């Protein structure tokens, strides 16, 4: 069809534009130039020969992976006349809500700054720089006085904002009827129900084998596991992003999950990536940012207290402090409904030309932010590699968990999807809980904002994140939340208060994620 063809060429043009000037581009040119010396390259068939050389040496695959990566972050095609805000978020009321939420956060940050007399940014004296360089691998041993710092916001503050979201075109005052929505989210978005999820996630069905279920101790490995591992090895050796993504839907074997995820995300560890990381590290050494204290506080409060992640404390600082200073992250704001906070150089408030983005990456950490990184420490321990993977996961998925948008993977859709799934699947339970003042979302929200990090045991969490990557969507998080409620429904029916409901759902560390998902969707 004509329209599709036009869309496709626009997409191609966009991707070519983005990749031109990227390091890969110059590498390909270099390879093409150098291969001219090779005997098999003939002048008569120059184009085809160079092409086959690039294919055989794996460079075409690298290009394919890079294109695949661009396709992932490419925003959906929009009307040519639409302003750039539309790419960030098409719905006006959501944009407005996000903007006012950002204002609040910034106000909170600025007031903390004024109250404590701490500057937003400060150059470190040379002695301090030296000290930090020496302590780089053990920043966790520092015990700075963080008592004055408060997290800028916690997930529950964000939840209140989401609950108050209203679509001005939609009157939802019907009250509690059999047809109405009983949950907290008052807007209506297109979220998938169970039959639609079944269609979209066929690899999770009961008839399909996967890791997390069919690699159980009692099942002989010949039935599935051995073959799956064999295929996995092949995928890794082929270095194919798309194949790795498809493969991940059935789970990644522990032994090469690290390589598979890096492949899916096209997170490379080339010299230029290492150099970029070193530059960020240098930036950390030179300047101290106010948000650094927020990061320290968050790590000390969350990851350091976790039985399994406490060991990785130092890595978390090494990643998050660098992350705050990485201006490359600003790119993702073109498709994120959020806008990076701007700050003014002292004395020049209001003058556009004196604004700087603060923090440099535009992302203000909140309470629990470090839990996005902790599970990755289990897979990667070279800081630059860990950093690449985390950054890519952030700009593809995690950012959606704390910005207000209509995206199907956005936190608003996930909340709505969770509530609808639960209400349709177990109406009696939902009704009971809302009647006793224990709205399910109030309990499930904190799980979803963190994509369950810190709530599930590590191996189960990694199996869940396999599927987030495999299906390129966070929907599975909403489904799991509903599945957890379903699993503990019997106990939940007995409770009479929010506190007791919280107690029933306090400990998820023994849950097996894949059977829960499978039973919820397919049984």
């Amino acid at each position: 069809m004509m329209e599709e063809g036009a869309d496709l060429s626009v997409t191609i043009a966009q991707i070519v534009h983005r990749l031109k000037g990227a390091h890969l581009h110059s590498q390909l040119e270099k390879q093409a130039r150098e291969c001219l010396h090779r005997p098999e390259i003939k002048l008569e068939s120059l184009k085809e020969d160079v092409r086959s050389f690039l294919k055989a040496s794996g460079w075409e695959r690298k290009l394919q992976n890079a294109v695949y990566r661009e396709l992932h972050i490419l925003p959906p095609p929009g009307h040519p006349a639409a302003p750039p805000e539309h790419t960030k978020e098409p719905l006006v009321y959501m944009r407005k809500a996000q903007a006012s939420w950002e204002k609040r956060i910034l106000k909170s940050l600025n007031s903390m700054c004024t109250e404590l007399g701490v500057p937003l940014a400060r150059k470190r004296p040379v002695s301090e720089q030296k000290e930090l360089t020496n302590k780089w691998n053990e920043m966790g041993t520092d015990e700075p006085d963080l008592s004055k710092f408060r997290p800028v916001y916690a997930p529950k503050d964000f939840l209140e904002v989401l609950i108050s979201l209203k679509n001005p075109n939609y009157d939802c005052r019907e009250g509690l009827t059999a047809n109405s929505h009983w949950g907290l989210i008052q807007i209506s978005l297109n979220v998938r129900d169970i039959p639609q999820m079944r269609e979209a996630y066929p690899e999770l069905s009961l008839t399909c084998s996967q890791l997390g279920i069919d690699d159980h101790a009692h099942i002989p490995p010949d039935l599935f596991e051995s073959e799956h591992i064999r295929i996995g090895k092949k995928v890794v050796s082929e270095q194919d992003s798309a194949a790795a993504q498809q493969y991940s839907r059935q789970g990644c074997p522990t032994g090469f999950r690290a390589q598979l995820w890096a492949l899916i995300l096209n997170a490379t560890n080339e010299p230029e990536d290492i150099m970029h990381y070193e530059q960020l590290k240098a930036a950390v050494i030179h300047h101290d940012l106010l948000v650094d204290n927020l990061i320290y506080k968050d790590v000390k409060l969350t990851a350091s207290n976790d039985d399994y992640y406490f060991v990785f404390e130092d890595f978390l600082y090494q990643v998050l402090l660098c992350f705050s200073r990485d201006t490359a992250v600003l790119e993702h704001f073109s498709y994120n409904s959020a806008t990076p906070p701007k700050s003014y150089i002292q004395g020049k408030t209001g003058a556009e030309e004196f604004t700087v983005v603060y923090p440099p990456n535009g992302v203000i950490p909140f309470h629990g932010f470090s839990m996005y990184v902790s599970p990755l420490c289990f897979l990667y321990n070279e800081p630059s590699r860990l950093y690449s993977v985390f950054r890519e996961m952030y700009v593809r998925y995690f950012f959606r968990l704390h910005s207000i948008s209509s995206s199907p993977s956005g936190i608003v859709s996930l909340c709505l999807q969770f509530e609808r799934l639960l209400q349709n699947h177990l109406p009696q339970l939902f009704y009971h809980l809302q009647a006793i003042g224990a709205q399910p979302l109030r309990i499930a929200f904190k799980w979803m904002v963190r994509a369950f990090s810190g709530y599930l045991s590590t191996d189960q969490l990694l199996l869940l994140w396999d599927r987030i990557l495999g299906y390129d969507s966070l929907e599975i998080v909403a489904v799991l939340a509903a599945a957890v409620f379903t699993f503990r429904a019997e106990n939940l029916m007995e409770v009479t208060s929010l506190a007791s409901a919280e107690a029933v759902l306090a400990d998820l560390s023994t849950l097996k994620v894949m059977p829960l998902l499978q039973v919820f969707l397919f049984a």
Partner: protein
Amino acid sequence: TFFPSQQNSIGYTLTSLPPNSDSPDREGRSSVRYKCSMINSILDVLRQRPGWVEIKEDGEWDFNWCDVGWLRENFDHSYMEEHVRICHFRNHYELTRKNLMVKNLKRYRKTLDREVGRLEGAKCDFFPCTFELPSEYHLFVEEFKRSPGSIWIMKPVARSQGKGIFLFRKLKDIMEWKKVQRFSLNFEDQRDEAPVESYVAQRYIENPYLIGGRKFDLRVYVLVTSYLPLKAWLYRDGFARFSNTRFSLSSIDDQYVHLTNVAVQKTAPDYDPEKGCKWQMQQLRRYLTAKHGSEAVETLFKDIDNIFIRSLLSVQKVIINDKHCFELYGYDILLDQHLKPWLIEVNASPSLTASSQEDYEMKYRLLEDTLNVVDMEGRLTGKEKRVGGYDLMWNDGPVYREDVSLETLGTTYQIANTNLGCVNDRRKQLRQLLKPFPGHKRS
């Protein structure tokens, strides 16, 4: 005890049942009188075992969970009937005292070198170069001078929980210590005068495997029910104990960095009891697999099995075998950066005090299964290869999983019957394996 009682046994109600007819030659007891000198998890396990009755003070007992002091004083004068069981071997210290363990291992290695060959002897290369002091002082000094700049660790042979241990790099660092030890005046003559305390000097492992910049060691549990023939079980659970501070060779005085015993860590200035410094073995195994792949990790665990078996074989002929005795050993293993496991020491009385709820539950399972293997109730046939979380590792010879599949048929490749750090689905297995307790019925 610190933690609430754990309802961890399979539920039974009281009715009468015909006696266990599966193993007529094993005398099963429906009521077991036990003595226990500890007040930690073992006491909970014993108290909650159906049909077990505690005997206080003097009185006849069928089972004694004693400490090594009691054993030393009373074992030789006690008469024990056929069915009676006690939790230590008379001269366990051949394995658990650092100097004796090293002596036995060295002797065993020499025997292997001589009788089988150097390749076989090399399989005993899992303990660092060690010398007993003062008897081997000269040999130690020779070796010390051969590798200048390397770090050594001094350990008292008979103390536990990290007490009395220190590191040194120069001979002059131990001159003070020598004086304090009040060795015989003619120290250089190595006279037979017993020193106040015996020590071992051992090459310090300078490249330990680090996680998050921290050093850790492994605690693994091995149950021996007989030395002649040797019958040993390996428990699937265990844990990795982390040092609270980051590893660095620059401060060898900071014993908190280098010693990973929980007892030492607890006294460190930045110790936070809320902070767990242990990882379950399953978590560690998964982490290593994620980092190095399953083949490397399987090789590592095979090498760890090798440590248990060789160390037990080295004392097999020395330990006074007694059918009344069994012993639960706590092995301390250290990994280096090349994923090579090293034997640090073997404990005859591994700590049964729990540091957290998770730890309590693990020790509870361990002890419950230990009693299942000892089997006072006579419910086992004696042919089992697995009881709860225990896998039979050695039964007068290696024990294999016996997986007959198309790949192994016709080949000599056999998989060992050990599963350290693997899934411990013991409840299901016990339900299938064991008949109910005598006088009880499955509920």
